[in-house]
């Protein structure tokens, strides 16, 4: 009787190509993500009167509300990202390099903070800076005035503060990781050579932190562009961003085509920024690997 012949692994692999294994996740992705996205795109070129055209795009682009929303979205996102980068870099520096009691606990709290919903921050700011909040309460209690001086939460500055507060830990997390990799001997040697703290931060720490700053900053920028909860909860008058415009067109005005047009613009903006982020991080990672 002939001996059974073992099928080599390579042959077995050829019978069941690996690409077939990709089918289930691709199908799931298509069903839950790509299909709705395609529907949004399709709806944006399908006016209510029937047929297909880009007329809705022309209409929406011509609206002052859209242009305001686009400007608000970009300005708030850029401002919040810049604020989060500056504040996050400073706080991460302190936590990583200035030993103080509770520093490690704060580092761990950053991780917990990342899991908080964004509206919670707005709510907390309302408790602190709202018209009947703690800050105004302290002021009115101390001065006997009828109203406190803090009245910015319902302005773009309130949105900006809330977004900076919420997104700063997203910058800090990768920075803390980068700082933990930084050789502290470099800082010691720099100091012994005569460099003061600002020069050490500028010339030794910052160049090493740049990839993490770019990664954290890009992430925050994309998240800010799409932030809805903070703007809604702040209730800032006249502060309409693209996500809020989508909501108002779709839910309040029943203009689904217009909402889809704004959504497409929002998605295009996010994808363009993501592309920029990938280009930047790939280049920086390349430089970093070459240096290592």
């Amino acid at each position, binding site marked *: 009787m002939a001996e059974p012949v073992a099928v080599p692994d390579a042959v077995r692999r050829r019978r069941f190509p690996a690409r077939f294994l990709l089918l289930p996740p691709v199908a799931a992705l298509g069903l839950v993500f790509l299909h709705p996205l395609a529907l949004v795109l399709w709806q944006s070129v399908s006016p209510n009167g029937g047929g297909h055209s880009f007329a809705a795009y022309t209409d929406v682009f011509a609206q002052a509300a859209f242009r305001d929303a686009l400007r608000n979205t970009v300005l708030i996102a850029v401002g919040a990202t810049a604020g989060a980068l500056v504040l996050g870099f400073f706080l991460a520096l302190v936590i990583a390099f200035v030993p103080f009691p509770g520093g490690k606990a704060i580092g761990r709290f950053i991780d917990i903070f990342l899991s908080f919903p964004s509206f919670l921050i707005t709510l907390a700011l309302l408790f602190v800076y709202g018209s009947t909040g703690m800050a105004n309460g302290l002021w009115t209690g101390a001065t006997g005035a009828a109203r406190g001086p803090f009245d910015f939460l319902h302005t773009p500055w309130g949105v900006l503060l809330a977004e900076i507060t919420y997104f700063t830990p997203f910058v800090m997390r990768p920075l803390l990781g980068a700082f933990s990799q930084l050789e502290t001997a470099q800082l*010691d*040697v720099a100091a*012994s050579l*005569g460099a003061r703290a600002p020069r050490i931060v500028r*010339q030794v720490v910052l160049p090493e932190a740049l990839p993490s700053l770019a990664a954290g900053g890009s992430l925050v920028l994309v998240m800010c562009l799409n932030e809805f909860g903070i703007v809604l909860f702040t209730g800032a008058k006249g502060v309409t961003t693209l996500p809020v415009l989508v909501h108002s067109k779709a839910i309040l005005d029943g203009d689904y085509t217009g909402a889809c047009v704004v959504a497409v613009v929002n998605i295009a903006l996010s994808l363009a920024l993501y592309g920029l982020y990938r280009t930047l991080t790939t280049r920086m990672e390349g430089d970093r690997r*070459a240096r*290592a």
Partner: protein
Amino acid sequence: MSTGIRFDGVTVTYGRTTVLDSFDLTVEPGEVMALLGPSGSGKTTALRALAGFVEPAAGRVHIGDRDVTALPPHRRGVGMVVQQYALFPHMKVDANVAFGLKARKAPRAEITARVAEALEMTGMAAYAKRYPRELSGGQQQRVAIARALAIRPGVLLLDEPLSALDARLRSGMLAELARLHRELPDITMLYVTHDQVEALTLADRIAVMDSARLQDCGTPRDLYRRPRTEFTASFIGTANLLPVTVTADGVRLAGTALDVPAGGAAVGAPATLCVRPHLVGLGEGPNALRGTVAEVQWRGATHRLCVDVEGHRVTADLPELPAPPPAGAEVTLHFAAHDAVLLPAGTHG
């Protein structure tokens, strides 16, 4: 101008742990002082206290005639070279070397000249436009030394600078450091190491440290030939440390009377006799020790004999023997009185 260093009773604590205990040491201007000791002995802490990276809980640190205890690191004027080079990876070699000069706001022309001089001195002039990643470990350490020398420090601190290098590179760098010191005799060097060869080769004096304390200090020859503690004797080179008793008639190793100077040892007090293995001879002679060969090791140019004498192991390093005694053979070892040192017992750190 040469600058000396002085530690006056410096104590450093981390919480309840004392990592440097009442440390007193004076390093003369232009001297190379090695801080030699095992891990955790406090040698790096002493260096960091001098550089300003740890704050003493007690005591004062002086560089030259300045009390620098309260000065921040950037105002102490010391150059520093560490084990892992700590070069700034995003800067080219010349920018690394220029870093300290720029931090001190030196004029541009002076920076260019001094960077060139430091790189020339360390043999790295040809690598000025390379990044640290493009250099070998030895070359990176040369750049680190050039960077420290460029600021023309009065004091150069070297913290295990050769530990990351392989044996061949280490030997070459050791010779380079010795050459640099000859060329820059004004620089006072504090050299932290756990490697006795580095300390013996490079240092004018060695401070032996253990358990956060200074155990011994002297010239390499002194410490090797006349150690003052059991710890120094065993840490610098190898040593036979034999428990002996000082009697009115002399020194005794169990039943064997020895003719060695008792020095100031009190009669009846336990003491430790220190004899270096290469100073022990085979055969009859002064201070004869009879025993049984436990082990014979051939080491190329030498034979090492391990002999059990009066219940103690005595090691003798002898020029290669044509017919070494086999294990179990009865042999006689001897040593000259002037090659032995009597140490206080219980000074092993």
